[in-house]
């Protein structure tokens, strides 16, 4: 290579390296800025589960976690109406079990429920553990994880203390009005086969159960009725995991007395329940929880008068069913 050419090439290479380093530096600084002050103080990035943080401390007796199966199947106000115990659904769509863990930690800082419920559909959501490089990049540049906090942080205070005052009148439940007919086919065919849960997910679940038990909170796995997502192989795997971790397990798909009619009770042909299905599930689950965990009926407790006021609004919102 002749000398004249060498200089620009070297210049360009050095220039590119400086540029890339500069970009990395900016991203690292942003990562520092955006990262929550305490590691456990991860914001619940979805709006609905954030509502639990606005509930008064030590008022909730049941906390429910999971994905869209959970927020369409569990309606705290419905269960309050019937049994009188306060609960909250901290579910977000396509929730990863890792996110569940941080939600559990965050809400148990403020609440001491009798029982924590984990909806089991999220157990099978595969986390991207197969790509170590991406996970490492994400850890280093945590801006990739926390970037959505720009909505909640105030730029001047470099926000390390978010105040949560948004309350959800549905207590985390998402009202599904539509009906899309499904088929009443037997999807829970008994078998001894097992559909294994991803190893990484299992570790997270075990950690969550341990954390709750350490705090003296019981854990119940619940499989909501879903002809599309659930089957007996999954039931077997979750039952085994419950046994191993010391959690309780309730598979609503096997409770014939709920009488889910897949022609009328589902919003999307067997994937999620609609309000009609939710009511059936909540009547059953409410009674089950009330009896199994000896919950108190707080409907006459003046401290919970606000809950009674919610019933009216709830009935208006769901009136058409």
């Amino acid at each position, binding site marked *: 290579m002749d000398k004249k050419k060498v200089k620009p090439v070297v210049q360009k290479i050095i220039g*590119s390296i400086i540029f890339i380093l500069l970009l990395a530096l*900016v991203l690292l600084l942003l990562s520092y800025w955006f990262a929550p002050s305490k590691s456990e103080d991860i914001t619940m990035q979805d*709006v609905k589960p954030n509502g639990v943080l606005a509930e008064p401390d030590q008022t909730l007796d049941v906390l429910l976690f999971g994905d869209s199966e959970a927020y369409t199947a569990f309606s705290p106000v419905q269960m309050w109406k019937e049994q009188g115990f306060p609960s909250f659904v901290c579910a977000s769509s396509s929730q990863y079990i890792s996110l569940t863990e941080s939600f559990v930690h965050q809400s148990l800082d403020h609440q001491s429920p009798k029982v924590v419920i984990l909806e089991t559909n999220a157990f099978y959501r595969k986390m991207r553990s197969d790509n170590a490089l991406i996970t490492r*990049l994400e850890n280093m540049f945590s801006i990739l994880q926390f*970037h959505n906090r720009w909505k909640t942080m105030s730029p001047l205070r470099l926000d390390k203390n978010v105040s949560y005052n948004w309350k959800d009148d549905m207590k985390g439940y998402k009202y599904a009005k539509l009906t899309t007919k499904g088929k009443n086919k037997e999807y829970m065919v008994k078998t001894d086969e097992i559909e294994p849960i991803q190893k990484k997910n299992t570790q997270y679940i075990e950690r969550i159960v341990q954390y709750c038990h350490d705090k003296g909170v019981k854990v119940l796995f619940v499989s909501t009725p879903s002809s599309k997502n659930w089957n007996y192989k999954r039931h077997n795997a979750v039952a085994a995991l419950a046994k191993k971790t010391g959690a309780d397990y309730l598979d609503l798909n096997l409770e014939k007395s709920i009488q889910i009619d897949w022609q009328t009770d589902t919003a999307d042909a067997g994937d999620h329940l609609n309000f009609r299905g939710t009511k059936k599930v909540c009547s059953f689950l409410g009674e089950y929880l009330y009896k199994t965990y000896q919950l108190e009926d707080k409907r006459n407790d003046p401290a919970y008068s606000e809950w009674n006021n919610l019933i009216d609004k709830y009935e208006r919102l769901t009136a058409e069913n």
Partner: protein
Amino acid sequence: MKITSYISVAYLAIFLPASILLYTIVPKKARPFVLLTASFVFFWFISEFLIVYLLISILSIYLLALCLDKLKKQRSAALAAAASKEEKKAIKSKNGSKQLAVVIVGVLINIGILAVLKYSPFLFTNINLFFRLTHSKLAVEVPNFLAPIGISFYSLQAVSYIHDVYKEKIQADKNIARVALFMSFFPILMEGPICRYSDTAEALYSGERLHYRNLTFGAQRLAFGAFKKIVIADRLNIIVTTIFKDYEAYDFDGGLILLGAILYTIELYMEFSGTIDVVIGSGEMFGVTIPENFRQPFFSKSITEFWQRWHITLGTWFRDYIFYPVTMSKPMKKLTKNARKKLGRDYGPMPASIIAFFCVWLCNGLWHGAGWEYIFFGMYHFVLISLGSLILPLSNTVLGKLKIDRNKWPYKVFCIVRTALLVCIGEMIFNSRGIKDSLRMLRIMFTQFSFKSLFDGSILSIGLDAYDIIILFVAIAIVFVVGIIKEKGKSPRQLIAAKPIFVRWPIYIGLVVFVVVFGAYGAGYLPIDPIYASF
């Protein structure tokens, strides 16, 4: 590794850099094979063993083109030896029909695979429907095939190659590796653009070394494409999905449905053109100029012009391989000649072109998907374009009488807004869940039109908060400004490159930071499959 989109960490941070690195460290002669290997690996990642279909296509066009080449040589040899004019004529016609047969075989193989994989379920479902309507007890089983992603794109490339060899626009390639690379170059595999052999084959196979300028300019285009997709399209997807899926449940009025149509159109544009930016930017990094697929489509003043600026390579494909062959066929030429005598200058070419438009738009609709809503979408544009051509002479007279100047800005703005609205309605049909659904949405739009739900806060209840809306406005404004600069014939990248370093670098870094911070990804946003990859 699984790659589902070009705008993903897997592609942008791993696959593409690895390919570039490998490309540059091997000797020049091996470079095309690095690209070819990378392309096949890429195809394997997304479609696994369905790669067989791609290999069949490549092999078929390679061999048939050589076959054509041989026939052409035979013809010239025979013509040189022939003495009389009659003899020459006989040779030409015999050889010509042989060549035609080869082309037909090529088209049948390539379009045939596409048709069987993509359209037979649709066809069989409708046959059953017909049986049921006629109370026949007959029923056929509806097949279910897996089609590789991108088949609609590379099949059209295959047809263009065979056709161009037949018409002697290009020479048959004796190197199968070059044909394979032309068909499968990994950036264009999933969502096009539909390239011609004469556009890309040479450059792909040349093994040109990497250039600093190509790399940096390509990288900038990648970042801008990611910006369009992650900040705008993925954010809009939330609200658009809700409107299109649950408009009945929420009781939306016509105003909100129209808003949904407009937002979906913006989403589709940002998503598709953003991906194409990444595709062209990737090509640029290897020194390959991939043809542009968009030219600021929303500045179009008519539907015809819109299709010259939106998905350009599909439009020119239909123009060159359907529109002109139909209008220039013998019977159509005759029709035009007679029609000109009877209907005059303006309307003379109408009958032939309306027939050709019909073929083009039927194919265009079907190309986008096997479903009646897509055919409806095609027919909608067929009617608009045909009406546009029919009305043009009339509207010229009316405008002249009203003394409205076509070239003044008020009329231009009127045309642009009108065209954009018509396009949005078309895309609404396109995105509906079926023909009934699209008709229902159209009915609500026109019979229950009001702006009420735009202002009573309904918008904020369907997935986006005020922050998201601000970001959307800012980001769309940026794309709009870039569009204006390009429309004026300038290159935004060159303008920035001419600036001093302390202006240039903050712009580049700012763009990346904007995507990272304000992108609609991560918890709370679902990853979205690319819209155009399924075609």
